[in-house]
């Protein structure tokens, strides 16, 4: 438990509770279990995406193409469903993971084999993937009437009192947690983030590890592509436009260091939840939704100022410590 809830995660959890408590003071119904579960369900997609982005950021990279990947995969799956309603939904979900992984692998291969900086690669694929959504759809929408009932209803079903969408988030988070803490690949993400040179000397293939992180981010983006489309029941070019930065924001608020090597599954989940709680609280306390963007901007800045204090001893000073200790 102490590993799961380090101080940073604890403070963030307290911050979320404080927001909930403040809103509850004036609107008691806000903190009823049903409403909290709704907020969790609303935030599920962001939580999953934050998991993928965290893996990439841990390796000192960044994936700005996740939202475009989501839109492209979502559009492909929706068009398949519209054209062939008979295709079973589990197959479509598996397909969305495969397509998303392939798009992520495209990013990864450019980073791995050509050594192009990740921000440049994903800046390019950000526009390419979204452009492709337009190309394959011809700019048209796939709307609720064209989707099959199974396609729309699957995530709305309930299991043990929780919507299936929430279960997706829980399972993905659990898998990523196991990957990060119990497998060599997961530890490699941290190792190359903290010190790529040292990682090479311990036998880690830095390029391939980054590639795997991009494939993971792509797989999650693809899965979320299906979930997003079936949740909002519309597939269009604009789906999740600009969402890539919200995903990064969730990670940053959750204490994932943009310099790599620092970050936990719990932190990224809480970062996403914080944004979800704030976004859900605004309409309740009667603040115009137009405040959302400024508030999440301020939250990122506050989070990074607080994180910056605890990361101050990074970089060259750590080297000195290591040398002094040796």
């Amino acid at each position, binding site marked *: 438990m102490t590993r799961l809830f380090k101080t940073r995660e604890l403070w963030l959890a307290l911050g979320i509770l404080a927001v909930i408590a403040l809103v509850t003071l004036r609107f008691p119904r806000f903190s009823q279990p049903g409403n909290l579960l709704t907020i969790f369900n609303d935030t599920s997609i962001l939580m999953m995406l934050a998991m993928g982005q965290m893996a990439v950021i841990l390796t000192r990279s*960044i994936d700005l193409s996740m939202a475009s990947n989501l839109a492209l995969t979502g559009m492909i799956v929706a068009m398949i469903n519209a054209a062939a309603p008979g295709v079973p939904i589990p197959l479509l979900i598996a397909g969305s993971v495969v397509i998303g992984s392939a798009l992520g692998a495209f990013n990864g291969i*450019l980073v791995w084999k*050509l*050594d*192009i*900086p990740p*921000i*440049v*690669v994903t*800046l*390019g*694929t*950000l*526009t*390419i993937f*979204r*452009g*492709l959504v*337009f*190309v394959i759809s011809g*700019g048209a929408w796939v709307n609720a009437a064209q989707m099959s009932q199974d396609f729309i209803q699957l995530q709305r079903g309930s299991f043990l009192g929780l919507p299936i969408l929430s279960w997706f988030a829980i399972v993905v988070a659990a898998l990523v947690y196991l990957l990060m803490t119990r497998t060599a690949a997961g530890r490699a993400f941290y190792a190359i983030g903290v010190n790529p*040179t040292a990682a090479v000397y311990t036998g880690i293939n830095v390029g391939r590890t980054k590639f795997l992180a991009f494939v993971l981010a792509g797989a999650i983006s693809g899965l979320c592509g299906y979930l997003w489309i079936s949740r909002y029941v519309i597939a269009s*070019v604009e789906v999740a436009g*600009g969402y890539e*930065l919200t995903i*990064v*924001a969730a990670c*940053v608020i959750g204490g994932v260091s*943009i*310099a790599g090597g620092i970050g936990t599954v719990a932190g990224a989940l809480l970062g996403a939840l914080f944004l979800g709680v704030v976004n859900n609280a605004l309409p309740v306390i009667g603040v*115009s939704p*137009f*405040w*959302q*963007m*400024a*508030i*999440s*901007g*301020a939250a*990122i*800045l506050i989070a*990074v*100022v607080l994180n*910056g204090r605890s990361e*101050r001893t990074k970089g*060259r000073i750590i080297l000195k410590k290591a040398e002094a200790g040796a």
Partner: protein
Amino acid sequence: MTDQTATGRQLPDRLDNPVKSAVLSWESLLILVALAIFIANSFASPYFLNEWSLSDMTFNFTEKALIALAMALVIITGEIDLSVASIIALASTLMGLALQAGADTPVLVGVGIGVGILCGAFNGFLVTGLKLPSIVVTIGTMSLFRGVAYIVLGDQSFKGYPASFSWFGQGYVFWVISFELVLFLVCAVIFYVLLHHTNFGRRVFAIGNNATAARFSGVRVDRIKFVLFCLTGLMSGMAAVLLTARLGSTRPSIAQGFELEAVTMVVLGGVSILGGSGTIVGVVLAALIMGLVTFGLGLLNVPGIVMSIFIGALLIVVIALPILFRMWRQRKA
């Protein structure tokens, strides 16, 4: 940007042949690409080779390119500023507020540029004063600045800018040469001199190559970075004046996506995203290329979103090709 492996530097026993290195430089490649696109455009559309068409073409890139000039310097020092488009939104919104309060053209321009500098100074303070990574800071201020514009405007817009103000975005200095183009060319010359022919410029490169070494050599790293963020704010403020004047209205979604296009111009222009190298000539050529591509495709009735595929592919291909070429040569050797 690819020489990241920590192999010791080899000192050459003679300087490179200046003619050979000029021919093989990134800039010559960009000129070739620009020429190829120019020729392809003139074959593809009969409307392309016309002085007014070409003049219209420049409006496609001038505002973004103004920002890219300053962004190039920021990226050369190893930082980045993703908040530029949001600075445009905030500056434009406050210009709109000033207009409502009865301000006339000189005050509007002053407000736009002033807000830009203040936003840049805020970024600069967070990055240099609090020692925070610029990519996170500017992702935060990107939401914050545009968020304030949304709070002020919501789903409304400001309209009714005076004609004397519109001239900045729509006026021509003489014949087909627009004010925007003249301003961009003047700024390009200023930035060229600043980066390549002043102490300040050398310090910018020094910081990008090794900030610690630069600090020990007496370069005021933080002060220079702070100035560069203010400069980027200033250029964004200027772009806000031009864009607002050209569109004649302010919406909170103004200039959406400009930050990525400005970064694309800078990287396409041969500036290393990791800092330490790059030229203003390259950035100007990259801006021209992006203007040519979008305008040429526009003449062919290609939708804007499909153009973005070309821009994205151009970015990756132009960076990947020299790397592939070098790998191929190494394999042969």
